[in-house]
């Protein structure tokens, strides 16, 4: 299979179109502009493809809602501030159980922040920044190959579970290039009954999130919660690296995990600390059990995030006091080198005993 060398933003765009995405609406924002621009260039050439530069992130959100209800595979993308504006819409998509893919190419926050790579939106993505009880599937890709693969899978899972799926990457993943290949996407395979295409001579259908009766609404909430449990049972993804003989486990995702890997390699080379890496790929649902199982033999964990500590909560919830957890954070767009991180790990490890 022949290799490609494309920027992360473009990979997501191409992978989406190959996966059958035929409706994209979005609004410019750095560092995800290349994704919208790729869609502008190629979507209208795809059969039935629609590209709209919406008047705002909010409008984009509700455009994909309509298109999803109409049966198209839909995607929108933005970066941190724009994703905040989409929260009402995401909550509504989850409530209406409409398949959809939302891409967040994170930048430094809070507020206007800056346009550098950061991981400050983990809470927003995994705890539902929107109102009410709902969760979405959240992927945290760490390589260009994963960007391609997970984007395609995102559309499949969105259909399978009738839920919004978020791809949570950062400015570095969005901008960098790396050789990768496109695998063959799944054909669309799940029920289309929910779609609205006009009632024909049949019974008319309704898609809505408004459920005035408290008991019905409660049941709907539990239904969504059960759905999320099924997802947690079937769809958890994660990677472990050099954990077999590790005395210390670094937990990191996305860009942070890339850097961590580099750091661990160095440590092995200069045979300093024997450390391993646990990398969640599904950030929500979080691979709780899988992480906890490591705490059987290993008692030292170091969480590294490009934030002040958000995934840290999930790690603490997973390990429930079975192990010691340290944290190293670089928020606001600072990206350490593998060498810097390696030193941090050594210092942390030595301080410990």
């Amino acid at each position, binding site marked *: 299979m022949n290799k490609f060398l494309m920027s992360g933003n473009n990979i997501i765009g191409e992978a989406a179109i190959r996966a059958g995405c*035929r*409706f994209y*609406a979005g609004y410019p924002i750095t560092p995800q502009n290349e994704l919208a621009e790729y869609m502008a260039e190629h979507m*209208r050439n795809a*059969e*039935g*493809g*629609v590209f*709209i530069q*919406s*008047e*705002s992130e*909010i*409008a*984009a*959100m*509700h*455009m*994909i*809602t*309509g*298109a*999803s*209800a*109409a*049966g*198209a595979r*839909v995607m929108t993308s933005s970066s941190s501030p724009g994703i905040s504006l989409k929260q*009402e*819409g995401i909550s*509504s998509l989850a409530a*209406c159980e409409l398949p959809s893919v939302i891409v967040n190419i994170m930048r430094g926050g809070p507020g206007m922040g800056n346009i550098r790579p950061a991981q400050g939106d983990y809470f927003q993505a995994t705890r539902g920044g929107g109102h009410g009880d709902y969760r979405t599937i959240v992927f945290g890709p760490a390589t260009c190959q994963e960007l391609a693969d997970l984007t395609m899978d995102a559309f499949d899972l969105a259909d399978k579970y009738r839920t919004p799926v978020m791809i949570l990457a950062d400015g570095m993943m969005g901008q960098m290039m790396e050789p990768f290949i496109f695998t063959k996407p799944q054909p669309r395979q799940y029920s*289309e009954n929910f779609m*609205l*295409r*006009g*009632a*024909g*001579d049949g019974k*008319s*259908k*309704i*898609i*809505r*999130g*408004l459920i005035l009766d408290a008991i019905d609404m409660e049941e709907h909430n539990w239904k969504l919660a059960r759905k999320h449990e099924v997802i947690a049972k079937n769809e958890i993804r994660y990677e472990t690296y050099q954990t077999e003989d590790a005395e210390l486990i670094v937990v990191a995702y996305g860009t942070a995990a890339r850097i961590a890997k580099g750091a661990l390699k160095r440590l092995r080379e200069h045979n300093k600390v024997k450390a391993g890496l646990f990398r969640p790929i599904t950030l929500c649902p979080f691979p709780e059990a899988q992480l906890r199982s490591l705490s059987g033999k290993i008692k030292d964990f170091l969480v590294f995030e490009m934030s002040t500590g958000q995934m840290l909560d999930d790690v603490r919830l997973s390990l429930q006091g079975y192990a010691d957890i340290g944290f190293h954070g670089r928020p606001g767009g600072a990206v350490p080198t593998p060498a810097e991180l390696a030193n941090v790990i050594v210092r942390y490890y030595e301080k410990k005993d």
Partner: protein
Amino acid sequence: MAKIIFQRPKYLKENVFHYCPDCGHSIAHRLIADVVDEMGIRGITIGVPPAGCAVLAYNYFDLDMIEAQHGRGPALATGLKRTLPDRFVFSYQGDGDLASIGIAESFHAANRGENITVFFINNAVYGMTGGQMAPTTMLEQRTTTTPAGRHKTLDGYPVKVCELLSPLQGVAYAQRCTLTSPAQVNKTKKAIRKDFQCQKDALGFSIAEILSPCPTNWKMSPADACKWVDEVMNKEFPLGGYSRTLRQPPKKRRRLCELWPLKRYFPVLTDKVF
């Protein structure tokens, strides 16, 4: 042998309207359902009810419907229509929904000339939430958020939606009408039909603004409410229409559909319909 000449529209469900007595929504619903029936487009029409007193419209219309978040109807309808260009798509909105929180979505859908229809119920007040000021509230009108009457320098001026949108080149048809007499009701029905016709001819964005009584929040009797529409609202919101049909002959605009070769894209679905 007597024959029936007026009855419940075929595509309204049996449910009793939850609307207040004399609420304009009720008549508007009936007229839309009638037109959908007359044009024989029930099977290929999708409606978008708003957040507002009409939030439950899907309990009445026997059509495929999807709720829009407050103000976002035109964006959502855009998504539907661009995906299914041979369907009829309408967004049903109140004045707060369309002209306040949703002004951006309304304006830009119109400016893009989205080939959709907006039914705009202008009742000069927020009904659903209990009578707060709407963008269309009259100067000096008392509402729960303008207890001393709407003050022009503090609260701004009534927003004239048809005047705002009709200059846009994307707008094919904009009509303001009312419901205060049998004659007006029939005019309104004609406007609704014209709206759908515009969609059929792929002329672009069409809107019917329906001045509509809200006796509950106006704290008036039904009769007084109608009087107030005729004597007060009409002054600020003159009835009438704006039509750009002639300037944009269907042939040119019908390309809009060809751009998305739907039948090939969803083979299953179009046959299902007719």
